[in-house]
């Protein structure tokens, strides 16, 4: 049973990654779109990882899980801005990344302090 779950999960994961790299989702509905280069498709992979973070934010058993997932989500957005910088050639996307990293760090520290002081009741 456990081995079956591992096999099914790895098949789904490999299929998702290959499907994202080879043939992104909007091309299923609009085949006449201009074709993206590799960096345009890398954005879809980061969106997949961000979807996993959203699953953990939704289903976290404790509040600490949600804080961890929000922190990881902020770091993923920095990578998203870096890939946008390369693929569009505009350097101000990197400014958004730096500002988002700083804001996410301060917010995570504040949430951790609040968690340490009194603890959420869930």
């Amino acid at each position, binding site marked *: 049973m456990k081995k079956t779950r591992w096999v099914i999960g790895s098949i789904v*994961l490999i299929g998702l*990654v290959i499907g994202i790299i080879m043939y992104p989702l909007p091309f299923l509905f609009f085949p006449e779109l201009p074709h993206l280069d*590799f*960096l345009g498709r*890398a954005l879809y*992979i*980061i969106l*997949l*990882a*961000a979807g*996993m*973070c959203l*699953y*953990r934010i939704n289903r976290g058993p*404790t*509040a*600490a*899980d949600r*804080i*961890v*997932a929000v*922190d*990881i989500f902020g*770091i*993923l957005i*920095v*990578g998203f801005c*870096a*890939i946008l*910088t*390369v693929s569009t050639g505009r*350097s101000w996307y*990197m*400014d958004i*990344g*730096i500002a988002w*990293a*700083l804001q996410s*760090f301060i917010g*995570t*520290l504040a*949430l*951790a*302090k*609040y*968690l*340490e002081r*009194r*603890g*959420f009741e869930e």
Partner: protein
Amino acid sequence: MSHTLGLIFIIIGLAFDVFGCLGLIRLPDVYNRLQAATKCVTMGTCSILFGTFLMAGFVAAGLKALMCIVFLMLTTPVAAHAISRGAHRSGVALWPGSVVDRYAEDQEGERE
């Protein structure tokens, strides 16, 4: 040449991001999830930023990417330690299969 090297760094970073977030889903405990996700995603994002620096060169975008690498390397471990300490103090239980808990032993030693 530097374009190809940058693409290789970006692909390595994407793989680290996806597997870090997979650990965020699959692992059983707050502390395990924190370790897997924070290490892997920090390494992956720093690799993506270094690939950005290699592809852009010494212009505004590349230097901002280097600054962002230094900033992430400084701030993410601090945030992870703060979350872990807060979770342990607010009473989040460890996974039943975990072996040792040094922080609780230290706190008991301080009380005695």
